[in-house]
């Protein structure tokens, strides 16, 4: 290196120091953006908690709506939401976890089938929820449901909106969440344990069943909980596939319609003839929905951070 090159490089330093007045200001601006986001979250949550907590009593949680939904409680909506997400999880977990096991354990990563699956799962996650609603109506209700009715010679039994079709629509919507988290969970299992099992003469499936799956369980649970929390909050996919405006009875079979918390929020805030009278109930319903999704999310976050800590500790 010549002395000239050194000298030509030197003057840049003092100049950089002198002109850097805007720097700290701009850094501060990014900090303000972060603060603004936190502030908005606090305002939204605070507003809902403040106006909602007085409404949420035992009676509110355990009673049915009365007097054109201006009084009473939201028990049918809670019941419907729980039934919906349980049915969804039952349909979703085997397929989601199976797909994750396939992708992590069996698939050749460069094979066209593997790439097709990954591409589809990624893009499935980006399909708008309202399109899932259209799909549920066009495929599950009009095609599958009506098909079963015709095949069995029934009147309209399967080919109408119901708990079953709404749950299956939501299951497809949440499939990417479960596949991604389950695969991440499988990755946390130490490779040595897998190899030890195989070396002891266990078959591939025995290794998965006895070594991988038990260890990946917290991660799989995380995926399931995230799916439930998302499922409990999604309204657009179930509007046409099963959710009901108001029902005087609880659903007794998967082929019944149901009330749901998120849809109930939508109905109360847009269709109510007496918006001031409904307001306390509306805030209460929103608070219950938020608490439900947060408890679920919190559990998922805690489980996941424990799993990641184990991964980092290796």
């Amino acid at each position, binding site marked *: 290196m010549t002395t000239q090159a050194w000298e030509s490089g030197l003057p840049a330093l003092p100049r950089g120091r002198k002109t850097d007045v805007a720097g700290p200001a701009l850094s501060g601006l990014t900090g303000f*953006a972060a603060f*603004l986001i936190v502030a908005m979250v606090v305002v939204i949550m605070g507003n809902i908690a403040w106006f909602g907590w007085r409404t949420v009593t035992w009676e509110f949680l355990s009673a049915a709506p009365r007097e054109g939904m201006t009084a009473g409680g939201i028990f049918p909506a809670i019941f419907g939401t729980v039934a919906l997400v349980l049915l969804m999880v039952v349909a979703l977990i085997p397929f989601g976890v199976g797909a994750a096991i396939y992708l992590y354990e*069996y698939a050749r990563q460069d094979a066209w089938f593997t790439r097709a699956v990954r591409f*589809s799962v990624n*893009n499935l996650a980006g399909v708008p929820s309202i399109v899932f609603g259209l799909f549920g109506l066009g495929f599950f209700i*009009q095609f599958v449901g009506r098909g079963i009715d015709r095949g069995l010679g029934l009147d309209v039994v399967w080919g109408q909106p119901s708990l079953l079709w709404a749950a299956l629509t939501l299951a497809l919507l949440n499939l990417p969440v479960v596949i991604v988290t389950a695969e991440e969970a499988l990755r946390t299992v130490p490779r040595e344990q897998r190899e030890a099992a195989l070396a002891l003469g266990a078959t591939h499936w025995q290794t998965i069943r006895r070594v991988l799956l038990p260890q990946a369980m917290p991660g799989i649970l995380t995926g399931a909980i995230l799916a439930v929390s998302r499922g409990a909050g999604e309204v657009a996919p179930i509007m046409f596939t099963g959710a009901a405006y108001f029902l005087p009875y609880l659903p007794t079979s998967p082929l019944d319609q149901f009330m749901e918390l998120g849809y109930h929020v939508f109905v109360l805030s*847009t269709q109510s003839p007496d918006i001031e009278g409904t307001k306390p109930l509306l805030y209460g319903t929103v608070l219950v929905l938020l608490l439900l999704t947060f408890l679920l999310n919190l559990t998922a976050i805690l489980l996941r951070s424990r799993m990641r800590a184990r991964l980092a500790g290796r």
Partner: protein
Amino acid sequence: MSNANPAIGPLRHEGHGRSTRRRIQVWRESLISVLLRLCAFTGVAGLLLIMIFVFREALPVLMNPEIQKEASLRHFTSTLMWQPVGAVPKYGLAPLLGGTLKVVLVAMAFAVPLGVAAAVFTSEFASPRLRENLKPAVEILAGIPSVVLGFFALMVMASWIQMVTGATVRLNALNAGIALGLGVLPTIFTVSEDALRAVPKPFREASLGLGASPWQTAWSVTLPAAGAGVSAGILLGLARAVGETMIVLMASGNAAIVSGSVFDSVRTLSASIAAELAEVVFGSAHYSVLFFLGVILFVTTFAINVVAGMFVGRLRRRLAGA
């Protein structure tokens, strides 16, 4: 798996019973691998079925002469009115396309600067402890169901915005756009922050060592290095904004008018589907048109997501090569 080793071969055929058991085991293993492959195939099948069935219900608009008398591509462009219920239904798409564009632009103008700036702050300037508190706050925002954001925009935010701006229409494009921006902020923030954090530390150290200030380093080294990831975050946010339904359905006022002002009420593609599908007759022209709107949404978001996926791939290759 390792049947090529001749030294192990004979051991397996010691006795008859053992080889039968072995055969059953081999058979079971391959059955399981086929079943797991089928599980993986549900992902592909799901996406294909969505395409097929949403397109199928929209097809009469393009193919069925009976339906085309009422609604066809020509009807979509020949009028500026969206009045699907009436003696003479009008299916002009202009107000819906324009409305969607307007709300999405407001949302992105709100969410992109805020989300990217906050991501830069979190990854570049915040202390580790502050970062551990900022990320959960955004996760809380991400966990708020969109129907709750819609509710908040409808009941609370609309009045505040009206008070500040003095708009005559309470539920307008500005209100819906900001609420929608809140909905897509977590996507933009999280993807951008991940990309910024993935930039190797030596990049920053080299820049700081050359005498650049933290801000210069963030602006001219880290941000460009993570550019593809930040772009992917913005695109993913854009796709979500285009398809998001409940927020705009509740916060926008849903009047299908052609207007450039953000203080007018607005109706989007997604909100039209949500608001009208429940009342339409199965198989009617209106029914097919609503599915056609679904096709527009699907194709648009799909294209944006594919491009975003390409950006993510490029970022990964670039950082792997660095």
